[in-house]
């Protein structure tokens, strides 16, 4: 068992937080994990992405050429990573910022790939946590794959938030649940 996920979005969309959280939850669940963010000035502006691998075996390389999963929060990310998605792979895409009709050769890009649209931004706003669209996306992801239980996720989320941001737990968790809810409807 080996999951390879690339998460990508704008700088402010919490992509690295989500990737880290995902890896942490994976570790708590008992898997081997790796999390590789981009860093440095590249973080400033433009797209920001990270790679997460979750596996039941040792992970030699944290690099992934053709991920099986994508979590895409904006349009540039879609254009950048969809071509790398494995045949038969799944992309969870932020419907609010990625409009199918703005994309040339959409068909070609997504050939043999499963693209699931979820309006992460709107859902997060609905959940009263407009900044937590990343959590919403994680909800959708785990709702789809059921990699770890709610307990494990809660533990990981609390660890990630730490003391200084503990007050954000509720809002974040609500967004997470929204994501699960939404994916279950798809």
């Amino acid at each position, binding site marked *: 068992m080996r999951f390879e996920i690339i998460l990508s979005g*704008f*700088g402010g969309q919490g992509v690295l937080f989500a990737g880290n959280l995902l890896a942490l939850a994976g570790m708590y669940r008992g898997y081997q994990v790796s999390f590789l963010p981009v860093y440095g000035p590249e973080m400033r502006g433009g797209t920001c992405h990270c790679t997460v691998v979750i596996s039941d075996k040792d992970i030699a390389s944290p690099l992934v050429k053709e991920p099986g999963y994508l979590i895409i929060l*904006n349009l540039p990310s879609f254009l950048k990573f969809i071509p790398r998605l494995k045949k038969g792979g799944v992309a969870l895409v932020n419907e609010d*910022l990625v409009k199918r009709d703005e994309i040339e050769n959409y068909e070609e890009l997504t050939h043999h790939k499963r693209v699931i649209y979820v309006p992460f931004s709107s859902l997060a706003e609905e959940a009263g946590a407009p900044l937590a669209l990343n959590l919403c996306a994680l909800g959708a992801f785990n709702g789809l794959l059921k990699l770890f239980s709610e307990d494990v996720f809660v533990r990981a989320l609390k660890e990630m938030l730490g003391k200084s941001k503990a007050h954000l737990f509720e809002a974040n968790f609500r967004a997470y649940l929204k994501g699960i809810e939404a994916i279950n409807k798809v």
Partner: protein
Amino acid sequence: MKIKILEDRCKGCGLCIEFCPKKILALSDKRNLLGYKIVCWKSPENCNHCGICYLMCPEVVFVEDGEIER
């Protein structure tokens, strides 16, 4: 002179809104390609062309119409 807002450049920092003496600028709900909510006019007719928005905008968003856009 007509002032044009180069929406692509705006990062929604709000400096123009704050410093506009006429308080006629606001953030819209629209996002540009960079993902930022962008500035917009509340009541352009009240603009006195004082130039303060130009002076304070870090992104050179306010330009005279006709200046070359990227």
